[in-house]
């Protein structure tokens, strides 16, 4: 059962475009998506997922169940980096451990968006509030990871403390992705079923096609990172595959305990199992300049992201279908 889900996922258009992108880079093709187009597509996907989620939330109304899932989401964004940090510290210095912990405690919006497409293709329902869960999980781990790194290393870096934390909170919680996600969610919620039909031809219908093009670009970028993986060593490479499985499985079990739906559980697993490569690296570069981007970026973008998009998502869902 699980295997067929994985095989099926590998033959879905978005995943195939991701693989096409990776292959193009490996073959040495000059295929290239202009950076501003990539950023435009990414903006579109966040906008689309946000406003659609808000509209669905307006349809369904608030329930107690959704509060518990939001609570679990936030908690996991705090616990995952703590426990990751202590494991990573066995092999790495405090700065690198803190940076990678922050990366894996946060989320990858593109993985989430791909999972949403996967669920829609399999006609599995999920709540619009999962978009809120994603937005809430983006930032806490940044603060946790930087805090842990700072506590266990004695050096200052010449920058005044107050200024550091002020800017860190700003980068974490007012990050563009968080703002557009929460903003669109709210606008979708407010405009509800009056607003949605009029934006659907733009925000809804083209979603999967845009995702294909965007994953093409992600494939190009991920393959470039794969080249940098040599420096990561076997421990980190293992971490890049095992961490998403462990975190994803843990999320599925907890989701079962709190009585979440199958769709919500899959998305929670995807959020816990994915790692950030935009928000966190940006914040971490500033707050932990001694952490090597040559470690956390290739690991997240070159290992965990491809794993989740191709195998992780159907795996978590297979686990869910077993348990539900």
């Amino acid at each position, binding site marked *: 059962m699980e295997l067929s889900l994985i095989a099926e996922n590998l033959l879905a258009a978005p995943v195939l475009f991701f693989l096409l992108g990776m292959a193009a880079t490996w073959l040495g093709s000059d295929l290239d998506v202009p950076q501003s187009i*990539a950023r435009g597509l990414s903006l579109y996907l966040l906008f689309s997922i946000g406003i659609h989620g808000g509209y669905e939330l307006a349809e369904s109304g608030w329930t107690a169940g959704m509060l518990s899932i939001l609570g679990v989401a936030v908690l996991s964004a705090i616990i995952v980096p703590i426990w990751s940090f202590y494991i990573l510290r066995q092999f790495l210095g405090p700065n690198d451990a803190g940076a990678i912990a922050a990366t894996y405690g946060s989320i990858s919006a593109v993985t989430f968006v791909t999972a949403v497409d996967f669920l829609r293709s399999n006609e599995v329902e999920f709540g619009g509030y999962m978009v809120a869960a994603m937005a809430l999980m983006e930032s806490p781990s940044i603060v946790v990871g930087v805090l842990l790194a700072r506590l266990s290393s004695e050096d200052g870096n010449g920058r005044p403390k107050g200024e550091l934390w002020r800017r860190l909170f700003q980068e974490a919680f007012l990050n563009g992705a968080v703002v557009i996600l929460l903003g669109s969610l709210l606008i979708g919620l407010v405009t509800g079923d009056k607003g949605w039909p009029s934006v659907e031809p733009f925000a809804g219908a083209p979603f999967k096609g845009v995702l294909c093009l965007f994953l093409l670009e992600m494939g190009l970028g991920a393959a470039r990172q794969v080249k940098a993986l040599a420096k990561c060593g076997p421990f980190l490479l293992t971490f890049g595959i095992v961490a998403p499985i462990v975190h994803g499985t843990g999320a599925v079990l907890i989701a079962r305990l709190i009585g979440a739906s199958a769709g919500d559980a899959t998305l929670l697993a995807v959020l816990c199992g994915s790692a950030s490569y*935009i928000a966190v*690296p940006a914040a971490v570069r500033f707050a932990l300049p001694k952490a090597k981007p040559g470690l956390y970026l290739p690991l997240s973008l070159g290992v965990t992201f491809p794993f989740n998009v191709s195998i992780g998502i159907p795996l978590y869902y297979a686990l869910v279908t077993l348990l539900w």
Partner: protein
Amino acid sequence: MSPVHKLEIVVDKVHLREVTRLLDDAGVSGWTMIPDVPGKGGRGERTGDELTGVMSNCYVFSACEPEKTEGLIEPLRALLRRSGGICLVTECKSVIH
């Protein structure tokens, strides 16, 4: 034409604001910036056009009065020690208008 020093700095985008603040605090008359310049240095190659935007340098230059250079070098050196990048100083002449 009056003699000026041209300071050229390549630094991680994430530290740009610190560089321009140093310049502003030193009272230079202005600066110009070129965003997203790829390059290669001690910390490897940086393509500058990634979606993540994390590997992006920027280039800043400022024509400043020679007597102000002195006071700028030390803080710039401290910043570059932390963040990587380079800083060049060239003697040139400015056309005053």
